[in-house]
């Protein structure tokens, strides 16, 4: 499961699902580790959206500015 193509909202709702499953005790010990791994992947993805520069967006804005000129 790659996080590349999903949006922040999707990632966040998936995180909430995992949390919910954990809270409702729906995960057995076997599934636990894969779900926790997924959660940490999603967290990393979400945090990067908050704090890291996305070259793609900067590129889009740069192109818009170039068009305006």
């Amino acid at each position: 499961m790659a996080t590349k193509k999903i949006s922040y909202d999707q990632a966040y709702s998936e995180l909430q699902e995992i949390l919910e499953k954990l809270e409702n005790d729906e995960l057995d010990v076997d599934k636990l580790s894969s779900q926790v791994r997924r959660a940490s992947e999603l967290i990393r993805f979400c945090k990067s959206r908050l704090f890291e520069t996305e070259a793609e967006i900067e590129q889009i804005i740069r192109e818009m500015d170039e068009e305006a000129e």
Partner: protein
Amino acid sequence: MARESISLFELNTRIKELIRAHADPSYWVVAEISELKVNYSGHCYLELIEKDLGSERIVATNRATIWAQNYQMIKAYFETTTGQRLQEGLKVLIKVRIEFHELYRLSLNVLDIEPGYTVGELAIQKQKTIERLIAEGVFDMNTQLELPLLCRRIAVISSATAAGYSDFRDQLEQNSSGFRFYCKLFPAVMQGNGAEDSIVQALDRINTCEACFDLVVIIRGGGAKTDMNCFNSYWLAYHVCQFPLPVITGIGHEQDDSIVDLVAHTRLKTPTAVAAFLVDRMAERNAELDYIVEEITGLVQDKVQMAKQELARCGQLIQLRLKERIGRSKSRLAHFVHGLSIQLQQRVRSAVHRLEKDQVKMAFMAESELRSRYRHVEISGNQLKKGALQATKKTAFNLTQAENKIRILDPQHLLQRGYSITTSGGVVIRDARQLSENQEIETCFGQGKIVSTVKKVNSWQQRK
């Protein structure tokens, strides 16, 4: 033919006198300002109109003047009370005196103004605009949009040079948490006559690349506080309502909310407040993520802890069961061993008993056997003794006979009786054919021997 006539000046003088004689010193008049000009000396010239309520057709016009010394006072009073600049398009309640000048014709000299009327009138207009937007079903369209969780790609509508805009950017870019925002300015004129169209155009431009942004921010700062009319315009509000992205306003005024504020997704007072709102929103996201991390960590730890305890409990239970089982097996085994030993003892005892019986029997049997054997041996012994005696005797006789036979058969004895033995080269000669002429032969007698040479060989066959 000469008619009685007066000059134009005279006529105008009479009109002037008529007005002066019949007109009240002043009137309170309601009118709309359609034009407003202030000349170099500070006098203000107005065109007043009245429109038919239904058809909007102009039904009356007149000129008015506010002399410079009055204008300063009226303007300040009006603007502080209404929050509006005295300008075209406003409906005003003014106190006028009708003036007629022979050269400049009729004009109204504005003596005073009642700003309260305009405030009410604007409120009514505003209310009408709101009602129209509601009737058209667009009024709350933008407020019903959901702000995306992440609001970081921001289309900004502002004047490029406004202080408010640079404050906004600074605050976003230098947020202490290090959140990353992307701002793209869509410049627009934010006040005066062109503002409405300019802002609408900026919205249209954003609309063409709407997918690249999370929201639109309309900010304005540092301009005249009284120049807010464009934000009450139906047309701009209509665009904001239907804009596909959430619109946040920070158009900075102290008075009532403008219609754009009312229809915007979120209304904030200043550009700085908008920036703070966006930073806070990111901080909320961050806190949510931290909360989830904390919750998941806690829950997983609990779960692992519980599983461990469960395992330990199972282990203990297994141990307990095992002990019980072993205990039971042990006692069964002991019981079995006990039974076995009793059985064994019984068996051994019975075996011993049987053995003892057998022993007695065997001893008895052995004794009788021995006895019968003994008798047998005795008999045999006697027989043997007798036999042996007989055999000895017989043997002795046989020996004597044999001795005699041997004595008779002794070659010496034979030799003594006149026989001789001839040998040649150690070989006993039994047949003359064993010999050839001139062969040396040895002849033994009872006493001594001779050596001779064969002269002639005669076989018994040749003799026949």
